[in-house]
């Protein structure tokens, strides 16, 4: 009986592991979400920094609103959210927002139109999304 119970226990643990893998596969969508989020943030920074006003701001902000709307619909349609999703998502928004604010403020004050500032700045702003997406696939 004890032998039987131990086999049952091992089977249950194996089943739990299998289900965990299935759920993990179902949450991979968030990797794409973060990569697109990071890419869009970078494009917005480049547009605002390097295209003359008011076109740069209009193009950058218009694109950003469209991408975030699309991502919100995409996220709402997903069937499962990863463990710790809310904390991870809040970190993405806060870190991304701080970097965006820093790059944009300094750039508009001290480096208007300077490619050497805006291109690395755009990469920096994209980093939270890109790193998050990479970590998500490695989970």
């Amino acid at each position, binding site marked *: 009986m*004890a*032998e039987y*119970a*131990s*086999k*049952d*226990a*091992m089977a*249950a*643990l194996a*089943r*739990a592991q299998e*289900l*965990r893998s*299935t*759920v*993990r596969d*179902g*949450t991979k969508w968030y990797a794409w979400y973060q990569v697109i989020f990071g890419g869009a943030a970078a494009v917005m920074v480049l547009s605002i920094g390097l295209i003359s006003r008011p076109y740069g701001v209009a193009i950058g902000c218009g694109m950003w609103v469209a991408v975030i709307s699309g991502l919100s619909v995409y996220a*709402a*349609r997903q*069937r*499962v*959210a*990863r*463990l*710790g*999703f*809310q904390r991870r998502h809040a970190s993405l928004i806060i870190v991304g927002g701080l970097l965006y604010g820093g790059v944009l403020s300094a750039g508009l004050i001290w480096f208007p139109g300077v490619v050497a500032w805006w291109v690395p700045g755009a990469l920096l702003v994209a980093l939270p999304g890109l790193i998050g997406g990479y970590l998500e696939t490695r989970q």
Partner: protein
Amino acid sequence: MNTSQSGIHPRHGLDEVIHAPVRFSIVATLAAADKAEFGFVRDTVEVSDSVLSRQVATLEKAGYVAVTKGYVGKRPRTWLALTPDGRAVFAAHCQALRAIADTAADR
């Protein structure tokens, strides 16, 4: 000294509500997620809507699962999530399962 040597078999650590195979699968699925849609859990655990509803009602009554209803566009959706209690009980249940598996490995 392990638990079996001290006279307390690790099976006493198993939770009766979670022990049933379908409920165990439901809880194991939810343990890996923040929340999951009813249909996702149904497909993952491979049960019918009615079986899942019944088992979720039992888990909800035990305080292990929280059920949230809402809409995505015009479509009604039901979300399932483990409560902190449910998460703790599942962790203890898995620990008991590991202990049982280990007692066999020690022989």
